[in-house]
């Protein structure tokens, strides 16, 4: 779910990712994010889960602005292809509108590494459903500028698995608790965290594989926890393993997301 909202509640995930977002033209958003040490994976590049969270944030904000004044949006489907590691930064996220329908909005996000000669890092498409929040859609000053970077503090920022509190609950599964700082402004698990959990489950099952392609369908909100992600290998190709990852809200006894992930397992 996009986390852009007029209140400050539920912004911990955005602060952790440390993004800035700016509305350039109407319905065109540019975001920037650092390749911060706490977001790096085993290979020294930005974790796919962090990248997906940022894509969801920028694409979701763009979709939300497109939905105004009728409503705001909730992410329903995120697909992304990661074509190069992001090691330098800052990363630039360019989002444009592909379609604004009656019930949904489709936005595209392209990610480039400005510190690496503007290399293309990833491309993604986010589909969002339009809904009307209980208190109405958020009010923004336009053109919109958001800076979610946390103030620099003395304590080190934990890496993604520690921040999420990941437990390797089984050979094919991981779990996290639904901690308050992982919730979005609507009080449910942030959609970017769901993506990060999917990525970590794929990494766990493949023994350190790196996510290259993902489609993630958000089916229901995670409200209670713990959140469990179970990964099954569908098959293995020369370019990696294809996995099906199912995310469940164990406390609510329901499946909340299903993803298909391609994970490079060599080199």
């Amino acid at each position, binding site marked *: 779910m996009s986390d852009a909202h007029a209140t400050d509640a539920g912004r911990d995930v955005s602060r952790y990712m440390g993004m800035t977002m700016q509305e350039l033209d109407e319905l065109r958003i540019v975001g920037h994010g650092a390749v911060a040490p706490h977001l790096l994976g085993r290979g020294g590049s930005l974790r796919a889960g962090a990248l997906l969270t940022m894509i969801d944030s920028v694409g979701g904000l763009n979709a939300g602005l497109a939905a105004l004044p009728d409503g705001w949006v909730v992410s*329903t*489907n995120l*697909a992304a*292809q990661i*074509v*190069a590691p992001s090691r330098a930064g800052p990363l630039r996220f360019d989002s444009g509108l*592909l*379609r604004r*329908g009656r*019930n*949904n909005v*489709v936005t*595209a996000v392209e990610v480039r590494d400005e510190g690496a000669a503007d290399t*293309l890092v990833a*491309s993604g*498409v986010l*589909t969002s*459903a339009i809904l009307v929040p209980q208190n109405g859609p958020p009010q923004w000053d336009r053109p919109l500028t958001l800076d979610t970077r946390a103030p620099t503090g003395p304590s080190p920022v934990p890496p993604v698995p520690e921040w999420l509190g990941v437990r390797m609950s089984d050979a094919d599964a991981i779990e996290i608790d639904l901690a308050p700082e992982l919730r979005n402004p609507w009080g449910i698990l942030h959609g970017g965290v769901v993506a990060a959990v999917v990525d970590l489950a794929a990494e766990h099952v493949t023994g350190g594989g790196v996510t290259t*392609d993902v*489609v993630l*369908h958000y*089916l*229901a909100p995670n409200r209670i926890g713990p959140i469990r992600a179970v990964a099954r290998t*569908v*098959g*293995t*190709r*020369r*370019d990696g393993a*294809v996995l*099906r990852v199912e995310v469940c809200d164990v406390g609510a006894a329901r*499946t909340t997301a*299903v993803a*298909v992930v*391609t994970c490079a397992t060599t080199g």
Partner: protein
Amino acid sequence: MTAAYPPDQHLLRDLRFSFDHDGDRTSSRAWMPVVEEVCTDTGRARAGALATLVDVIGGGLAATAAAPGWIATADLTLSVVRCARPGSVVEARAQVLRAGRTTVVIEVALVDDREEDVGIATMSFAVLPRRDSNPEVDRMRDSPSTMAMPHSRLARPLLDELGVEVRDAARGVVDVPVIDWSRNSMGAMQGGVVATVADVAAEAALRSATGEPVVVTELYVTYLGFGRIGPVRSTVDILAAAAARGTARVELVDAGAENRRMTVVYAVATRDLP
């Protein structure tokens, strides 16, 4: 138009799909016999043909789940992990993941006749108000069933039947007419055929970029609008190209409708499927 859909001479008949639908309205199965006409030059079922199977079984199940409303396909993704070769049969096992007020999500597992995974697919649909012209899905859920007629078969390779013309392989420029044989129930190019056009365009461009006989193994198709007039025209941006794998972004427009953007597709092509 839709009362007689599909017509006697139609892609969905000639692919000889057969169907079986469970009574609980949350799952369906379909089978596609793999013939040489649906294969690439490497002798394996083309991703676009598998996407057509997925589109048909997923669309039918989604329409059932959305009843009394109707549906519009929003996206289709397909990951292929194993070759399906001529003489085999691919089974598509579809299940409803979500049936909400505005959205239906379907998952389709593809297996071969040895129960080996061939791939996995997902589809999303927007739920729309029903129109009189929409087909009655309950009538189509008589189990088991087939759209094939006694004479139905592909007389030529699928791409020839579709009228695919590769105009510029390196740039992935492909033209495909919108013909009655490949229309959907709304009169536009059928969704699986749209995926097939993207498959062909990506394959051509990625073979040129990699210098290898890669085949498309992943498709992420986002449907933005119908292709009603044609020709449907593709262009391809290569996002990454290495020896064993390439990634491309394909955009399809309806050239006959002032180049109206129809579809955005991300495709991955690889070598040496098991």
